[in-house]
């Protein structure tokens, strides 16, 4: 019976089931929208899950204020064109103290501007469930992550208190003040995501495609000079290079790759032929061993 069902259809159905289950069982869910390709797929799946109704939850973007300008422009147009309710939250306290990605190290900066900000936003709006676009194939430590990941009242991930998940019977019972993070894309791989974007013609931020952009080489990574806040070190002179990004985040912390891929098939080809993993462009992972694990405990995805 399932013989003719393709793996993408099977993944799509599974994700839609998860999205509907959460909408049915939780009072105040939210979808974390990071503007990246995984978020793009997750939002499309939500549109499919609730068609012809509108999304029964808002999108939430945690804005560190250091995102690429193209990302913010894309985000606003995306929400406007689709009529999504978009919430944006920034952790203003550290910003006032001048916390920035240059002086504070990617580790600490991320903790404050992303992890803490997310915890604040969840408390502020009283969300009891938050969808995130993380995939289990992203790295080794995510392989055992549940689809429903429980957080205590302080939004902390308690590794000893996670529930077994059997079949598609998710246990969404929580006490007041607790919440869950839900990962509808758990079983997708990077290639699945790209194939789906291609197949479904899902719009993505232009930064994923190659173009001439001003960059400097720093610590072995190509960093784009996206606005005037970029601090150049002595001797650094921005140069125009044809680059693109495999993953998007805060521009001073996101490395570009040299590439001429300007179409989805070209991106996919490059991805299949490249010999480096996706997360390599994300500087936060290199900071310290087991850093993902630490962040998760604090409430980061």
């Amino acid at each position, binding site marked *: 019976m399932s013989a003719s069902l393709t793996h993408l259809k099977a993944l799509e159905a599974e994700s839609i089931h998860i999205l509907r289950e959460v*909408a049915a069982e939780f009072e105040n869910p939210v979808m974390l929208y990071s503007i990246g390709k995984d978020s793009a797929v997750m939002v499309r799946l939500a549109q499919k899950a609730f068609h012809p109704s509108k999304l029964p939850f808002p999108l939430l973007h945690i804005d560190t204020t250091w995102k690429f300008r193209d990302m913010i422009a894309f985000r606003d147009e995306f929400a406007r064109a689709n009529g999504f309710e978009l919430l944006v939250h920034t952790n203003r306290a550290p910003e006032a103290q001048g916390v920035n990605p240059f002086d504070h190290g990617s580790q600490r900066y991320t903790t404050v501007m992303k992890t803490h900000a997310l915890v604040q936003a969840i408390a502020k709006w009283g969300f009891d469930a938050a969808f995130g676009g993380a995939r289990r194939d992203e790295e080794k430590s995510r392989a055992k992550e549940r689809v429903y990941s429980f957080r205590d009242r302080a939004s902390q991930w308690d590794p000893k208190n996670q529930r077994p998940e059997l079949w598609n019977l998710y246990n969404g019972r929580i006490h007041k003040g607790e919440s869950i993070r839900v990962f509808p894309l758990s*079983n997708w791989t990077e290639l699945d995501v790209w194939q789906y974007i291609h197949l479904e013609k899902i719009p993505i931020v232009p930064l994923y495609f190659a173009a001439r952009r001003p960059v400097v080489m720093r610590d072995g990574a190509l960093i784009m000079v996206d606005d005037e806040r970029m601090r150049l070190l002595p001797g650094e002179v921005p140069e125009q290079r044809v680059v693109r990004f495999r993953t998007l985040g805060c521009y001073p912390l996101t490395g570009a790759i040299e590439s001429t891929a300007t179409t989805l098939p070209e991106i996919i080809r490059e991805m299949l032929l490249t010999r480096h993993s996706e997360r390599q462009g994300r500087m936060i992972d290199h900071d310290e061993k087991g850093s993902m694990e630490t962040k998760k405990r604090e409430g980061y995805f």
Partner: protein
Amino acid sequence: MRGVPEKQLLDGDVEAYLALQQKKELLRFLTCGSVDDGKSTLIGRLLHDSNVVHDDQLDALRRDSAKRSSAGGAIDYSLLVDGLVSEREQGITIDVAYRYFATDRRKFIIADTPGHEQYTRNMATGASTADLAVILVDARLGVLPQTRRHSTIAALLGIRHVIVAVNKMDLRGYERSVFEAIRQEYQPFAEKLGFASIQYIPMSALQGDNVVAGSERMPWYEGPPLLAYLETVPFARSRDLEALRFPVQYVLRPDLGFRGFAGTIASGVVRPGATVVCLPSGRSTKVARVVTYDGDLAEAAAPLAVTLTLADEVDVGRGDTIVGAGEGRPRVARSIEADVVWMNEAPLRVGASYLLKHGTRMVSAEVSEIHDRVDVTTLERHPARSLGLNDIGRVSLTAARPLVFDAYAACHATGAFILVDRMTNGTDGAGMIRGPGAHEPGASATGEGVTAEERAKRLGQNAAVVVMTGPDHVRQEELARALERRLWDDGHTAHVLEGRDVAALGVCQRLGLISIVVAGVGQASADPSAAPGARDAERVVVPSPDASIEAIVEELRARGVFRS
């Protein structure tokens, strides 16, 4: 770039390549083995050889392999999946780690179940979504109690296809006799488990024999290597029924003109125009449309997630099940018998009450009986009074509301449930339904009609008549409606009869309903015979005209109308 036709990609025909990729099927399999059987080495090699491992990870792998001298300088593939060791030390509960890889034919999801103490729980979790199990056997040790345990759990969880991977053949000189002896020992045991297919593969995960490539060192083995077998084994989910099962998950009402029932097709096929029945209400109607974001479908099959609209206004909501009108109806019962895997430190005991999640329905359920516990090594069943952590046993449960189900063996999606602790909210148990409980009315029904007792049990009430009296007809009617609502909200089946409908009272009593009769204008007498048919009723209550709803409910309770 081993798994991908690199040339084709480099030649630039990515579109053709993608078109091919989009035809891939998804196979989920489980790997089980005792510590040191070589499971990590095997999975690491599959990932490596199918190109999931990138160069930056490979560099790290080479560095780490060199540090550990056990592999004698060669790459130690097990390090690729070793992410769990440190977590075990930290006391993190890991049921299953999921790994992904793909070839040109199929995408694979491996459920890798670590740990030995929690083996049953972990394996059950991984097996619940798997189509196939790879059971590792160390060629030096042969079939161990552990091997039997893995096989039994796989079978109980409904896995139909098994690969017995006889690993470390290099340490036994690649001898055919070693392999054959293991096969001959395993086969009689496995026959009792009723797998649809068993494939025996001699291999060396370390040396790579019969994992991805064949083995020149075992020319006597004529079957395919593991990967080739995984790519081609037919795994059509025999567990799915032909008949439609559609548990309603979410109701979509974007505007007054649209009322759609969203859900995942658990089994069968749905088409516009098909006659369907909504359970447990039993209302029948037709499917109007099969709606998706990508347009209406002329046909949709399991496991697609779709939205149905119905031809009639039927009262359907989350937790109800829409089924095909033809043959092969599911059972509807409050009492079920099931095999339960217990996953909590505190044991399962008779009389305990849990939240039972079945499909999209969450109901309260009580353990009414524990029949036995399975010894997963010998398949013997022993009498038991409780089920402890990692035990599997047969249990009867009684739910507060009817469940619409099939036997797990016939359909996983409508035969599986979990048990949730009311206080901690933990998932304490997982169950696989075998059928209606022994005490369920109709469980043993063999053609004879349904008795009054059976009806009373199903409805949770005995038939009764409440006759409203008093001079004020409007007040009588108001009170009757309020009572009807109150009883209904309490889970009873009550209805108001007035005017000519009163003639139907006899039938309503036979159906086991609580009938509230509005006797008529000016009817002040307390004579129940005012309502024809009430005379024959077993339980008749005639409250005084100024009685409160509470008082009437109390009176009904005193008369034994409510059964719990």
